[in-house]
């Protein structure tokens, strides 16, 4: 088990390097002098010289990359052009909000999704099943920003139950989590339903029925457990999707977080912040996928074999 974990961790390194290379290249791919993309226009020649020295901007490209990466790993992601603060500070301020949003959305999708999927599988083709499947279809085809806007209109404005925007109190989390979560519910419910229906057909389940075990117990204690496996698989693959949903939703709800930080920096052409937040988001996606893989391996020995 440990060797699996270590092997997977090592596999991450080349991926991380590749991603960091792309992110590093952004400043050089954007039109304009890289120095202008890292400093504000009013900067004095002394400030420019200091930046050149710090990042080796007069050296060959691969050396610049090495310097940048070296600093990044130590936690120095440069300084924001507009806010004039270290990028690392900005990320530290915003990361907890994104983690909270993503974490709760994940929990919500998982729990509600599994419940919905199990419910419809048990009552297969009943009216509950049909309604759930329709809601699932709607949930996955509506753009998240529209869903967010509708939520704001209905719950925050008309009913006044929750705040319109920001992250000033705990109840400001509810609508954003719902917006991301509902999309995730669709996915999880669909997979759970299919997995449970397929598991139902298996021999050992027939045996349980023959033994006289109550159908409810069979469904929840035996079938569901087996059905969880593909659900975990799909969730671990789609952690990135949850993060993506978070970016849009943070923007719509004006919540602080890595997503808002990234989009604002993109609009402001504040490239040090763009690079820093992209790097953080990339790491988050990779760690999330790793976690999913580990969970899968814990549940299914075959996965462990596959990697070694």
């Amino acid at each position, binding site marked *: 088990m440990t060797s699996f974990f270590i092997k997977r961790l090592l596999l991450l390194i080349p991926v991380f390097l590749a991603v960091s290379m792309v992110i590093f290249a952004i400043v050089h791919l954007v039109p304009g002098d890289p120095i*202008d993309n890292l400093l*504000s*226009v*009013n900067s004095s020649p002394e*400030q420019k010289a200091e930046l050149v020295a710090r990042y080796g901007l007069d050296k060959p490209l691969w050396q610049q990359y090495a310097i940048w990466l070296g600093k990044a790993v130590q936690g120095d992601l440069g300084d924001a052009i*507009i*806010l*004039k*603060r270290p990028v690392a500070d900005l990320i530290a301020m915003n990361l907890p909000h994104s983690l909270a949003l993503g974490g709760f959305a994940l929990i*919500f999708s998982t*729990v*509600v999704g599994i*419940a919905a999927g199990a419910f419809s599988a048990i009552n297969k083709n009943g009216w509950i099943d049909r309604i759930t499947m329709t809601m699932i279809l709607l949930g996955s085809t509506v753009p998240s920003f529209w869903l967010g806007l509708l939520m*704001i209109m209905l719950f*925050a*404005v008309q009913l*006044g*139950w*929750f*705040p*319109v*925007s*920001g992250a000033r*109190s*705990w*109840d400001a989390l*509810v609508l954003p989590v719902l917006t991301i979560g509902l999309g995730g519910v669709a996915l999880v419910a669909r997979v759970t339903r299919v997995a449970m229906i397929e598991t139902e057909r298996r021999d050992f389940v027939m045996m349980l029925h023959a033994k006289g075990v109550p159908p409810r117990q069979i469904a929840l204690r035996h079938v569901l457990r087996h059905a969880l496996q593909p659900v975990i698989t799909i969730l671990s693959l789609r952690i990135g999707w949850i993060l993506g949903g978070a970016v849009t939703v943070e923007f719509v709800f*004006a919540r*602080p977080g890595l997503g808002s930080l990234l989009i*604002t920096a993109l*609009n*402001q*052409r*504040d490239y040090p912040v763009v690079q820093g937040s992209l790097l953080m988001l990339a790491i988050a996606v990779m760690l999330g996928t790793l976690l999913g893989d580990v969970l899968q391996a814990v549940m299914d020995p075959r996965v462990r074999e596959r990697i070694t």
Partner: protein
Amino acid sequence: MRYTITSLLLAGSILVPASFVAFAASAQEATFVMPTVDVGAPSYDPIRGSKLNAATTLIYDRMVIQDADQSFHGQLATEWSSTEDGMSWTFKLRPGVTFHDGEPFNAATIAWWVPKFAGTENEFMTSAIASVEAVDDLTVKFTMKNPDPNLLSNMASSFMGIPSPKAYDAAGDSYGITTAVGSGPFKLESFTVGQETVLVANEAYAWASDLSVNQGPPLIKKLTIREIAEDSTAFLELSTGGVDMLMSVPTDFLPRLEAAENVTVGQLPGTGIFYMPINTSVTPFDDIKVREAAALAINQKEILENIFGGIGAEAHNFLIGSLLESKVDPALNISYNPDRANMLLDEAGWVMGSDGVRAKDGVALQVALWTQNGTEFKRVTEVIQAELKAVGIGADITIFDSATINDQYRKGTEHQLAVRNYSWANSDIIDWFFSGQRLGYPNVSMWNDPKAEALNAVAMKESRTWEERVANFTAYHEYVLSQFVFAPIYEPVQVYAYDNKITVPETIRGTRLQSQTIVDIAVN
């Protein structure tokens, strides 16, 4: 019994906000929303900054404050006088004033402060001062290079808020972002550009001007000022109680706010203009005919009535209506005239194409139209795009973040037209935006004309009295208009709205919502 997770979550999500309501803030805290034109101000450095926001006068005190009737009231200065020829000024300073870092305010501060403007964009405010002499601890004397009838008016602007010399020099380049130390009624606790500023009351404050009723520390102990670029979000925040005051109200929502029972709406005369600078240094706008055509394509009346709900006034020149220098020769005012615009473009050789865009020598009359984010800017820009198309000028819109757009103008000549605004109640704004010394930004028109420079020099430096100044600036203004380096669009009024969680004085003193009024605002 089986509770589904869903029902538990729902129950939880109702309990949580309920418990927060129980802890309703009893502290003297308030949240305001910055006027939308101030969104994106990059720092609180009044000496070097080119864009400051409404919170600046809360952190810094000024020497004098100007009231709506044009009179000046002392703040950090208690008395002042000048010699007959205007070549020398004497100011008596208020005793007992300290900065937020404990440093004292005295004549030495002024002696440090005035020379600091040299080399900055705001140099024009002190360029007439030859030397500063500290006669005694509380008296300073300015010896002038030339008379400056505008001196007091400049000193009343937020750009002449006085920072603590010690803090200013210590922080170097990052002054104004991570620290900002003044002597004002509020201290800066934190500042996030484009997001919010958090201020706490200065308990040592005891030197408000006579424009304020409250002569001690402000009644609000913690003031958060948020920057919200989208009008609907700001409106929603006020209606749902998320904020207590909107320092500028989007005109779309004015009727609803006026109808709301718990909201009071107030109005102040306008202090600025929306306009469209025209980049004179690139084709096609190096041709004055094309410039005039673009300027005449703008329908000020339609914009006023439909985008701004009829609130405010049309703008036909560069100055606000309350300034004498705005009363130029009526023939020079710029108004909607699409027939003449079409005629000028035909004369200039731009032939109308089948797609509605003109072309000349195979080059289409397609220009770049820049603006910053913010509901009103985006809307006015889209209307102007359509109005330009109606005379055959195609425009591509690019929207920049308000914190960086001024840097974008500085970068180069890629912009051809832009939609922007300014907020300044003095005719020297013409010098600010059109002087050949400031190409890029603030001179977005990239205009450097010898005759204009000559008129500028006379107006800025050779006016000995106020009347002469008015005459000189009117002449300068008229020349600027005749060259069509910009197109006027709209003159807003200042509308503000607040809910019944705070009490605001009936009469707002001064020309804007600034420290002199805000110290009097109480939380109910």
